[in-house]
């Protein structure tokens, strides 16, 4: 963690005044800390508030902080402390899940920047929805044995490529982070809506293959 600039407010441990890398626990004195509700995932994992999220850094911090809050280390502690360890562990893991995946990270950033929700912006172009119909037709035909495994494989490859393309487009709109209320956020919402249809079809394809 970078040293705290003189004039900035830097979180400190309430027990030993040590600088905090994560609000979950103090790396200096080892104390478990109770975390304010709605603490953003990047603060929990000591990452920048940004679209870019280096996998190595994220995993390193997740592993390191896991060792500080893992319930296994509190197996013989007082019930309240054990509970806090479980709670903070869960917070750490859900923060990791949000940041580790391009789509969930984008969804979180969009919400953080006050962008439109999937209720506010739901229109998709007819051509796109027609494609979604076609994917579903292929999946349905395969499920009742009317199309080959090759057809399903080719659909899956297609859908994975589409998902990757959406993630790349998200990066173009979210790096650098737009201002709250910027028009780019509407594009991000539409991309995330498209991703939802893609994910759903991929889930069906996976279920069919199993």
């Amino acid at each position, binding site marked *: 963690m970078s040293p705290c600039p003189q004039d900035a407010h830097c979180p400190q441990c309430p027990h030993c005044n040590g600088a905090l890398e994560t609000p979950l626990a103090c790396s200096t004195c080892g104390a478990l800390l109770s975390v304010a509700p709605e603490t953003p995932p990047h603060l929990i994992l000591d990452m920048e508030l940004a679209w870019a999220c280096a996998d190595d850094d994220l995993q390193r911090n997740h592993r390191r902080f896991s060792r500080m809050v893992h319930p296994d280390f509190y197996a013989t502690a007082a019930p309240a402390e054990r509970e806090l360890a479980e709670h903070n562990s869960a917070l750490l893991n859900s923060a990791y899940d949000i940041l580790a995946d391009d789509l969930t990270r984008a969804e979180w950033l969009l919400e953080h920047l006050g962008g439109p929700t*999937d*209720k506010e912006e739901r229109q998709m172009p007819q051509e796109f*929805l*027609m494609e*979604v119909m076609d994917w*579903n037709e292929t999946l*349905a035909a395969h499920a009742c044995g009317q199309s080959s495994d090759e057809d399903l494989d080719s659909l899956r490859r297609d859908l994975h490529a589409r998902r990757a393309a959406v993630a790349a487009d998200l990066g173009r709109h979210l790096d650098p982070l737009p201002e709250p209320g910027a028009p780019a956020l509407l594009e991000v919402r539409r991309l995330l809506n498209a991703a*939802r*249809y893609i994910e759903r*079809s991929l889930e069906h394809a996976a279920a069919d293959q199993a």
Partner: protein
Amino acid sequence: MAYSNKVLDHYNNPRNVGTLDKGQTNVGTGIVGAPECGDVMKLQIEVEGDRIVDAKFKTFGCGSAIASSSLATEWIKGKTIGEALAVKNTEIVEELALPPVKIHCSVLAEDAIKSAIADFKAKRGTQIGGQA
């Protein structure tokens, strides 16, 4: 969550499943989707004069989405365009006893009717050389 008997009936015996030839000038096609769940619904109408003489649907989604679109096609068949436009999602909710978490399925069906009619009107507009 338990489905009502009416939902189950439409789900098990969906009415008017199928496809109309969307190349026909008197066929309107509407495709709508729900991003929150990935459901997608296609509803088509065949119109003679001002009356809907046939309606077909194809829905990939949950039981409530299938039932809502099945019911919608049943209701709009034989209606005029104006009457079909007046079908409200709340009537579908009431008829199928949809729980609050499934209301968006009925909204989807209403949107699908409107979208199919809009497509038909757009076609009819171009058909008579944009004089409409």
